[in-house]
């Protein structure tokens, strides 16, 4: 078993699935010869040819609109959008067509495509290269929204996404791309979409997070006194949400901190807090707390760390719900 980073794990998943299923194809800007701006598709065009790994014109609506057509007519497209900020031009295709096609046609026409998009901040990128759009696409119906934080999960979730009969937004936290390695099996395995992962078990407080913030939460845990026992949950899938895992955990701990990079208002933290309030109100020992980005533009990189929910802010929130 090889130790891979997130980029390598996704590349491996793509290669193996293209090998296994010749309906799978990759399309996007610079994904071919260049291997994508993050090199996630590196070497795939060489291996599978220009018909299966396609450098398209620079047009996100074009890429996702044609992917919908490809999917309708028997292919399994895995389009790449270079940065989340450039989903904008394709928004209409995603939310008004991909997400609704099954419903509109009463199941006669479906859109099995997986849209891969690097997301999130923390890499000193220019503006519009650091946002976290998971709440937006979770709010729109008919889309599954996945965000792995580790190479192992990324491979398993990507295979599950490509095989999923419905459209999946596959968000890759770019801050983790090359910062973390772990063993990733060569075997064909999937990680179920819609299942959260308990990263560490604990009794005093539940910390719920996903994407790059998982690593911030882990760092926060390291800073806490040893006798504080934290249950850390990596959601992995944002929609559909694994309510059972979070509810069960908060029933046990009675306290919860939710951390995510996206802005606070109408972020997924709001949704999770509501679920907890509905399902384990009588078990709560403290108000559920959020540590999130501010309700502002994600600042250019000189100030981005003030915006991101970094470890110290998560730690402080944990201390506060414990002291409540």
């Amino acid at each position, binding site marked *: 078993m090889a130790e891979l980073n997130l980029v390598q794990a996704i590349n491996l998943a793509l290669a193996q699935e293209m090998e296994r299923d010749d309906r799978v194809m990759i399309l996007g*800007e610079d994904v071919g010869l260049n291997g994508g701006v993050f090199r996630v598709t590196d070497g795939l065009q060489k291996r599978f040819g220009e018909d299966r790994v396609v450098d398209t014109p620079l047009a996100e609506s074009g890429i996702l609109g044609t992917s919908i057509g490809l999917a309708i007519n028997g292919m399994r497209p895995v389009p790449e959008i270079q940065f989340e900020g450039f989903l*904008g031009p394709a928004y209409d295709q995603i939310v008004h067509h991909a997400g609704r096609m099954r419903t509109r046609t009463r199941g006669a026409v479906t859109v099995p495509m997986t849209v891969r998009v690097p997301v999130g901040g923390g890499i000193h990128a220019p503006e519009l290269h650091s946002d976290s759009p998971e709440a937006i696409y979770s709010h729109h119906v008919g889309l599954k929204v996945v965000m792995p934080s580790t190479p192992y999960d990324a491979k398993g979730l990507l295979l599950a996404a490509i095989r999923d009969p419905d459209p999946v937004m596959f968000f890759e936290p770019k801050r983790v791309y090359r910062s973390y390695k772990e063993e990733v099996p060569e075997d064909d395995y999937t990680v179920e979409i819609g299942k959260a992962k308990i990263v560490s078990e604990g009794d005093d407080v539940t910390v719920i997070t996903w994407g790059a913030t998982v690593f911030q939460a882990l760092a926060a845990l390291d800073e806490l006194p040893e006798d504080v026992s934290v249950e850390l949950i990596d959601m992995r899938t944002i929609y559909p949400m694994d309510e059972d895992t979070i509810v069960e955990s908060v029933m046990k701990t009675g306290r919860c901190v939710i951390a995510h990079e996206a802005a606070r208002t109408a972020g997924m933290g709001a949704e999770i807090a509501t679920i907890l309030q509905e399902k384990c109100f009588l078990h709560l020992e403290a108000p559920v707390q959020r540590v999130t980005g*501010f309700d502002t533009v994600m600042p250019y990189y000189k100030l981005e760390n003030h915006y991101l929910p970094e470890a110290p802010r998560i730690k402080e929130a944990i201390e506060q719900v414990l002291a409540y």
Partner: protein
Amino acid sequence: MPRKVAYKTQIEHLQILDENGKLDAKLAKEQGKHLLSDEQVQQSYEHMTICRQYDEVAFKLQRSGRMGTFPQNKGQEAVAIGSALAARKGQDWLVSAYRENAALFMHGLPMHYVLTYWMGDERGSKIPEGVKITPLSVPIGTHMLHATGIAWAAKIRKEDSVALTYFGDGATSEGDFHEAANFAGVLKVPCIFICQNNSWAISVPREKQTASETFAQKALAYGMPTIQVDGNDLFAMYAATRQAHERARKGEGPSFIEAVTYRLADHTTADDASRYRDPKDLDAWKAKDPLIRLRKYLESKDLWTDEQQEALEAKAKAIVQEVVKTAEEMPKPDITDIFDYTFEELPESLRVQRDTMRTTSLGQDPEQAGLGARAAH
């Protein structure tokens, strides 16, 4: 009814100054009073040299970790300067992408702003009063619509103002480009579309970007005059923009210019063009460098000496050094800067976030979290 031709046209290519710095006498004469004066050429050459130095220093700043990603302008200076020379500073609008520094500087953007911007500081996006430009545009292909709108407003308000918008060859693939051009054509607004065809959109060559033979012909679909220009030729860029500008001011509507040029650097400092580009192509284009061409021209007219060149290089270095210093010595932005420009007046919840720098409610506002009530018990 027999078949007949419904539409027929051709695309003209304009070059006035050739690759050896030789001016086409007949074409030059045609320009009449619109031909660039010696003084203008000299000034342009100086400006180009300074911008080239700026570009190279910016690249080094990135490589030494003093700046974030930077898109070099190298090789494309004649497009920016030739067109910007034809526009009136403070009166016409420049709606640019991110590879037209030279034009923005000419029209009043302080040089350190662009560095500040790529250093990850919002203040680099602030437009000084009286400068008629829009901020650098990162999303590809979306800003041309703004140019159409700006020109539309000028028309409605009977303002004597023209909007020039710059974009790459790749940008013509985005739907917004077609919407901008279509609106401009239909509404007959004073807008000039300047396509910087530098052969590449990151790793994608023009043949994979479009099946049409020229970018210029795309404008035909929107009913506007269009021309292909040697984008490394300052004279041709100036002449074509000048013409489009006159047309716009006369109320004859938008025009399109395809400037054929070449990106002499990587797409940005995050890119490695050697992965996809043939070094032979690059070398061939290096020989067509607009700076070399202009210098040859000036020398052939005895308007330029080695001493002048030396002095200019020293001057360029000094200017850019000063600009870098200004950018680097700016005090770190205030954290509250993140909030202050979100709205004219901050909503209460945002004010709380700013004043406490928190998104949790516990501890930031005891009442809100119920702590006040508890404390009272």
